[in-house]
């Protein structure tokens, strides 16, 4: 009975794992194919089903049928990282304020302000895209990196506030009070006592910012044309043209690689139950 239970359990884990991994393996396999391996139907194993070649990967670096994703890659890194950093700074500050002090403006209290931040996640991108479009046009920032950074801050700030408010609510208030009595004003308290103890929260918030920033397609798509293409836009535009599958697959893998790496690096922070309180 117990053996059967265990067997079923590992079978389930294995099944889901293969479902998760399948698209990556397929893309990896495809990226080493040539026309022979693609146009005559699906093939899977290199050397067995098809003769592997580095054509796909070479094309990323200006080889035959070269597609240039280096520019978009750099753009994506710049926009994602700068928007994440700004959001993390502003969001952490706001979250600390909301968690520790009482604010009141008429009937608006702390809970309402926190809700205002987080509720921005409800707005569908399409609702924001049109006003953003007009706003950036007015500011002359359409199709520029700074324009995208501004928009991404609006996307990521709510996430940072959401994670950090929950994190700070779990840091005992007495720690702040202790620091006050030891002569720190609120800003010094935050910088010298709270911040050095906030790494787990910052890592989780930062990861979420990077994920949602790096993975956005819609705003990058609607607010840029040709000058400042971000990576997802570049890849989707390859998709609609006649790019060979091997080059496309290689590009896709290169595009999702950094966050996969990040996931394994930040693993110990993720499943610690940091988010449990935020959902309640």
């Amino acid at each position, binding site marked *: 009975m117990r053996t059967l*239970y265990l067997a079923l359990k*590992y079978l389930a*884990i294995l099944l889901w794992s293969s479902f*998760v*991994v399948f*698209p990556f393996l397929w893309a990896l396999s*495809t990226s080493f194919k040539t026309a022979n391996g693609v146009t005559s*139907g*699906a093939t899977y194993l290199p050397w067995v089903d098809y003769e592997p070649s580095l054509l796909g990967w070479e094309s990323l670096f200006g080889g035959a049928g070269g597609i240039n994703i280096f520019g978009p890659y750099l753009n994506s890194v710049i926009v994602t990282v700068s928007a994440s950093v700004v959001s993390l700074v502003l*969001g952490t*500050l*706001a979250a600390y*304020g909301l968690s520790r*002090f009482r604010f009141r403006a008429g009937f608006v209290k702390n809970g309402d*302000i926190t809700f*205002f931040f987080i509720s921005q*996640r*409800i*707005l*569908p*991108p*399409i*609702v*924001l*895209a*049109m*006003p953003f479009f*007009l*706003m950036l046009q007015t500011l002359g920032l359409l199709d520029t990196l700074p324009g995208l950074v501004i928009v991404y*801050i*609006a996307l990521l*700030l709510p996430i940072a*506030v959401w994670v950090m408010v929950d994190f700070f609510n779990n840091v005992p208030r007495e720690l702040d009070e202790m620091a006050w009595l030891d002569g720190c004003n*609120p*800003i010094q308290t935050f910088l010298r006592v709270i911040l050095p103890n906030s790494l787990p929260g910052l890592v989780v918030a930062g990861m979420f910012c990077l*994920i949602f920033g790096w*993975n956005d*397609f819609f705003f990058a798509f*609607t607010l840029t044309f040709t000058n400042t293409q971000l990576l*997802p836009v570049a*890849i*989707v535009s*390859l*998709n609609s043209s006649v790019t060979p*599958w091997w080059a496309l*697959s290689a590009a*896709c893998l290169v*595009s*999702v690689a950094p966050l*996969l790496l*990040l*996931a*394994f690096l930040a*693993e110990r922070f*993720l*499943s610690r*139950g940091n*988010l*449990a309180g935020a*959902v309640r």
Partner: protein
Amino acid sequence: MYRQKYLFLIPGLLTLVAIIVFPLLFTIRVSFSSWDVIQPGLDWIGGENYARLWEDERYWEALLRLAGMAGGTVLVQYVLGFGLALLVWREVLLKRFFRVLFLIPMMTTPVVMSVIWRTIFHESLGPVNDLLQRAGLEALPWISSAGLAFTSVMIVEIWQWTPFMFLLLLAGLLSLPEEPYLAARIDGAGPFRTFFRVTFPRMAAISVGAILIRLIEASKIMETVYVLTSGGPGTATETSSYYIYIRGLRDFQLGYAASLSLIYLIIMIVSLTLIGKGLTRIFVKDQA
């Protein structure tokens, strides 16, 4: 005494207000204008756009389709996510590895993965039909038939976002106290009874939260659709966001699209609030 408190809150608050609130107010104004590609600019046409959208069947169909798609995927995600969380909650070989592996899909760019999924679902060159045929089954028109295209989009959404559900539910499981399980073991309760008597009631609040969060995100579905099916065949996979996108940023009927998006937003907020209240009543009240 704590005047410095404003230094914490104000920068973030002002930034968000500046970036989001003003454009949103502007959208409300635009929705009362006939702004389009021929005559860009703010005029006043009263509620004409709203009257037009009332008659716009394609809009309401897209909304219904979205409701079905979001509800369906989130339900499947919840069941799968809970199951997966239970699988790697307690001692399992390579626990940490599997926990990260299960999270992987949500870390990937949805459109990029959709590009890969498109090759997977490709009707003559993709592996899905190939495998079906090898198993002696028939190849299926994954993208070109209305029903299957809908299914394909849902499969991709489930692949992408079950991990998020998994993450939230696992976090919830990990924060459960140990004592009730000891008590259940002493009572000799089997795994099923333990689950329904001990685990599930305690996960009710988290479940509601996780389902709501996912519903919010799922109600925005459009990128997968854009890459995988472009709303097709016909309008078989067209969601609200996608339809508004076509009206607004492809046809450039900004005035009309603004009214569409505002009504969409209002319907979303109202229905999500109702769903939230309903779920809380069903799930959470029982245990009191």
